[in-house]
């Protein structure tokens, strides 16, 4: 985001040569207060000693990271071995978020393509329709989803009514319900960037491909997809990252039986355990992982740009 703002501003940079420094102050302040400040605080807290029942004692400690990576048994006095608990939780979150992202892509891409191929004057109406459900609070949407999906809910009633199934399918309190919930929560984050990319796509390229006897599938794969890839990548990141940290869908639709990263961290601050340094450490590890993913995708993008150029 910061990089985008800087490059957008550079065109006008000469005009404001002298003033440039302090004109950027607001953005630096925003970055400092809302990004750097909280992250630094989290980093510091993760290296402090936990206070019983929440809070921290200002003494340096590696206990939080130790707890994350080493298992010392139920009573904390066995020789350390690798702790799989939290790795399992992280892996589960990655898997759930990945499935939700894939689902969003499968549904979101055709939707975006559909909207982008409508006449220009009706496109805003379609985009508007996509965003309408998202005016409602996320909690309420997640609860409504639960009502729809449950054993005696409309979906199962409908399927039984049409004779497709005899007994209700259990969806609520399964991993699939969590994936559906995450997919539904973040779908517009996929549709909108993909739509923006497809809208800019020059459809005469597709016509040219057809003239050269490319099949529709080949055209999509070799011409359309490479052209809209930045939008797809942005959409995937925008869905994947918040899904990883989400706790509403896992708690409400998954039954809170298995921690995801989000609920694990929430529990450290709101729950009985009240272990702030550990919550901060888990957040830092999550942040590091997300940064690695983002840097990796940025490098891939840069590579792709280079080969194109």
């Amino acid at each position, binding site marked *: 985001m910061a990089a985008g703002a800087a490059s957008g501003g550079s065109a006008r940079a000469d005009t404001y040569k002298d003033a440039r420094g302090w004109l950027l102050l607001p953005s630096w302040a925003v970055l400092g207060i809302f990004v750097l400040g909280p992250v630094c605080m989290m980093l510091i807290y993760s290296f402090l000693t936990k206070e019983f029942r929440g809070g921290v004692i200002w003494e340096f400690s590696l206990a939080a990271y130790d707890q994350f990576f080493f298992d010392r048994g*139920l009573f904390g006095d066995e020789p350390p071995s690798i702790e799989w608990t939290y790795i399992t*939780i992280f892996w589960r979150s990655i898997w759930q978020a990945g499935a939700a992202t894939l689902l969003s892509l499968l549904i979101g891409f055709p939707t975006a393509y559909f909207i982008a191929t409508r006449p220009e004057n009706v496109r805003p109406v379609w985009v508007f329709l996509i965003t309408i459900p998202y005016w409602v609070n996320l909690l309420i949407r997640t609860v409504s989803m639960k009502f729809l999906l449950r054993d005696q809910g409309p979906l199962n009633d409908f399927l039984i009514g049409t004779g497709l199934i005899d007994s209700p399918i259990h969806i609520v*309190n399964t991993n699939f319900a969590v994936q559906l919930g995450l997919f539904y929560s973040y779908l517009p984050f996929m549709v909108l960037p993909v739509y923006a990319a497809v809208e800019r796509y020059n459809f005469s390229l597709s016509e040219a491909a057809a003239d050269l006897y490319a099949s529709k599938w080949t055209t999509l794969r070799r011409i359309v997809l490479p052209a809209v890839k930045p939008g797809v990548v942005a959409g995937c990141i925008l869905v994947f990252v918040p899904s990883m940290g989400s706790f509403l869908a896992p708690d409400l639709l998954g039954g809170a*039986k*298995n921690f995801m990263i989000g609920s694990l961290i929430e529990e450290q601050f709101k729950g*009985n355990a009240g272990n702030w340094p550990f919550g901060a450490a888990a957040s830092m590890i999550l942040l590091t992982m997300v940064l690695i993913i983002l840097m990796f995708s940025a490098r891939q993008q840069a590579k792709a740009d280079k080969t194109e150029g």
Partner: protein
Amino acid sequence: MKNLLIASAATLALSVAANAAAAEGKLVLYHWFEYMPQEVLDKFTAETGIEVTMDTYDSNESMLATLKAGGMGTYDLAVPGDYMVSIMAGEGLLDTIADGELANKGNIAPEWADPSFDPGRASSIPYQWGSTSFAVNRDAYSGDIQTTDILFNPPAELSGKINMLDSQGEVMAMASLHLGIPQCSADREQLKALNAMLQDAKQHWASFNSDTAKEVLVSGDAAVGQIYDGFAAKAREEGANVEYAYPTQGYVAWMDNVVLLKDAPNRDNALKFMDFLLEPENIAAVTNYAQYNAGVTGVADFLDPALAAQPEKNPHADAGDGVFIEVCDQETQAVYDQIWTNLKK
């Protein structure tokens, strides 16, 4: 343009002054969800002119976390459960009510006037008390339900249809009763057994949820739900064919209390509200709504007569004892935290 500026500045000054005036008649309450009828707050405002703002929480622990993370000085009153009153007192979060500051202190029922979690009622007054056990849908199961086996070792009909409260204290206390071990056990074999028992029981559970503990019973999503007695009564009134159990092994008893917080911004108004809640008529209105029990003498005349006859309020002859949740020391609590994490990993 200049006139407009002056006008808006004047409006701003006026509204600031108005806010300052309102601040004198304010009370900020931090309370459980779905636990305070609006009529009672309206009545208080009508009688005193004090405006009440209420924020809600869904567990004692999240309330404590909010207060410790900078909520002190914002709220005047909170409503912690029994064990949480002692924790908050130990953390120095409570203010002391001096003798004579509460005109109606004498209305507190004698059995609740000197509880172990707040000797002499130094900082608190009773709000409601009741029990936490579980309710079973009688359409799903007709056998004996007066045993903790229903939660931890259920019959096949109920397996996979159980909702547990998403609250470490309540789940651990019930599990300890099931195994017949003390709540803050330091005995390694007992703790290992507790860990193993919960690991095994988890396969029978559909979900952990506190805020929708009642809804899942009413909707039929769960056939068994760990639940508070008043919530079970409400679920029954909303049409679920549920029966509340008093297991022979025992059940969890609790009392919620209104506490005066340290650095309360409206201390005098908070005391007025406490006095207001000690009037039998007012606290009876809360009881009629929440369907638990009041800890104030003389409420009987104001209570809904149907309430006393509720099955949820009347343990059967073979019921075990009700026990309060205990507060463990730091070292023991660390093991219980580990067991809880193991359970939900």
